[in-house]
């Protein structure tokens, strides 16, 4: 092969880099994600200050504290990121004997809440109505959150299972946001954390913590800086950080789904970065050729 031929071959390689079939890219990413799930690498997870802030807000509470309200404003699509947050926060609250109320602003939320309630309270011998309860789903976010600022029992006269709130021990003395230690919105979009800030925080000065999918995380940052949000869990990384903190605090040794996924997350990112670099090398070389 002469010099002209070898230059042509290298040019073809660079052209190929700009035209990698998407099916190949998907396949490589799938392998990169699946492999560390089967054979974990155990990459370290550093806890970020914003996640720590939410953890500490709950860690200061005890059996005599007002209940924590968790709003599950997400659907099964966001489960990989938000469900581990829900499980970890429930474990943390129950381990510290903090009472928990749950609700949903998304119609798919109740199914996910029930899934979590099947899994966690039994481990800590918690009793429904005494240690935790579920308000259910309510349509019409503005009216719901504003109404809860006045009187929760007018918005949710009954719990999810049809029991009047007045006859439930946990909610007997809960009237509005003033009777809650903290409200946490695990949110995947609208309605979600924005409305909790808009109504519960801005209007009624409720303490609001937020857990969001990574897509929304950058939008929440300014509100954490101003103190409008007391702590933030961002995506699967945030969930894994909370799982680590809950385990380090000896609150739970249960399965940590998000931590399990972080190796796959890192390797997936690495592969994407490699593809971005390769594509750019091919693009710039081909552009110089032209």
């Amino acid at each position, binding site marked *: 092969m002469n010099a002209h031929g070898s230059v042509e071959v290298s040019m073809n390689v660079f052209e190929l880099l700009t035209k990698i079939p*998407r*099916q190949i890219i*998907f396949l490589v*990413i*799938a392998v990169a*994600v*699946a492999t560390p*799930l*089967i054979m974990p690498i155990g990459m370290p997870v550093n806890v970020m200050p914003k996640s720590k802030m939410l953890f500490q807000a709950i860690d200061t509470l005890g059996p005599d504290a007002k209940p924590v309200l968790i709003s599950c404003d997400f659907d099964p*699509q966001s*489960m*990989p*990121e938000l469900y581990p947050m829900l499980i970890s926060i429930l474990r943390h609250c129950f381990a510290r004997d903090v009472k928990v109320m749950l609700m949903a602003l998304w*119609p*798919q939320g*109740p199914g996910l809440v029930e899934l979590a309630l099947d899994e966690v309270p039994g481990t800590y011998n918690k009793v429904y109505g005494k240690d935790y309860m579920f308000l*259910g*789903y*309510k*349509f*019409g976010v*503005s009216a719901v959150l*504003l109404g809860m600022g006045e009187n929760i029992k007018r918005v949710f*006269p*009954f719990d999810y299972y049809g029991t009047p709130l007045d006859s439930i021990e946990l909610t007997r003395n809960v009237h509005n946001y003033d009777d809650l230690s903290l409200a946490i919105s695990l949110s995947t979009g609208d309605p979600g954390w924005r409305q909790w*800030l*808009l*109504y519960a*925080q*801005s*209007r009624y000065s409720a303490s609001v913590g937020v857990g969001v*999918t*990574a*897509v*929304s*995380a*950058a*939008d929440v940052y*300014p*509100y954490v*800086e*101003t*103190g*409008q949000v007391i702590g933030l869990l*961002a*995506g*699967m*990384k945030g969930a894994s950080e909370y799982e680590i903190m809950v385990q380090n605090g000896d609150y739970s040794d249960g*399965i940590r*789904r998000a931590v*399990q*996924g972080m190796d*796959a*997350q890192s390797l*997936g*990112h690495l592969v*994407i970065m490699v593809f971005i670099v390769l594509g750019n090398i091919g693009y710039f070389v081909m552009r110089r050729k032209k």
Partner: protein
Amino acid sequence: MNPSPDPWVWFAAFLTLCIFSFLYKDNIFYQFAEHLFVGISAGYLIAITYHNQIYPNLVVPLFFEGRILYIIPLALGLFYFARFIPRISFLVRIPIAFLLGWGSGVFIPAIFQRDILRQTQGTLLVQEAFEKWDTGLWAVVILIGVICTLIYFFFSRERKGIIKPMANLGIIFLMLGFGASFGYTVMSRISLLIGRMQFLLGDWLGIIQQ
């Protein structure tokens, strides 16, 4: 390997693979799963809205408890359907006007408080921010970022003099913001894939512990 004995898990795995098959190309399996999802979602939403909202908040008070005032929200709701009858389609303006009036009254002060007052307050340099050197530094960076980005969107003056470098700095801040958002978006999409992989390899095939 310990595959699930639950037929519903197998059906869910089949639907997941149907959706993934779109990554190769559009096909009948993907279309089947997509249509099934849309149909079930719509049905679920209608059922849960009726049982959680319409029945307890309208049907019970109006028809079982005889609270006649509830006829007003019922009428307002029904007026939305007036659009389908040209002769009385003007009635739809009543609930829309009601909603707009109520919405503006509720939203404007709350958004002003959440996004303008508190955010401006957070941007101002206060003494507490300088109690530690790093928080002080970041407070200054945030202030510069906000001012330069605002100047970039200030189109009433020609970009020359001090305005030009500040607007250019604003672009850098914007690009950093977009980069952070895009990075988080990639992270989120990979998380969705991880979730499905955990289901396929854990719940379905039993290869990994769940």
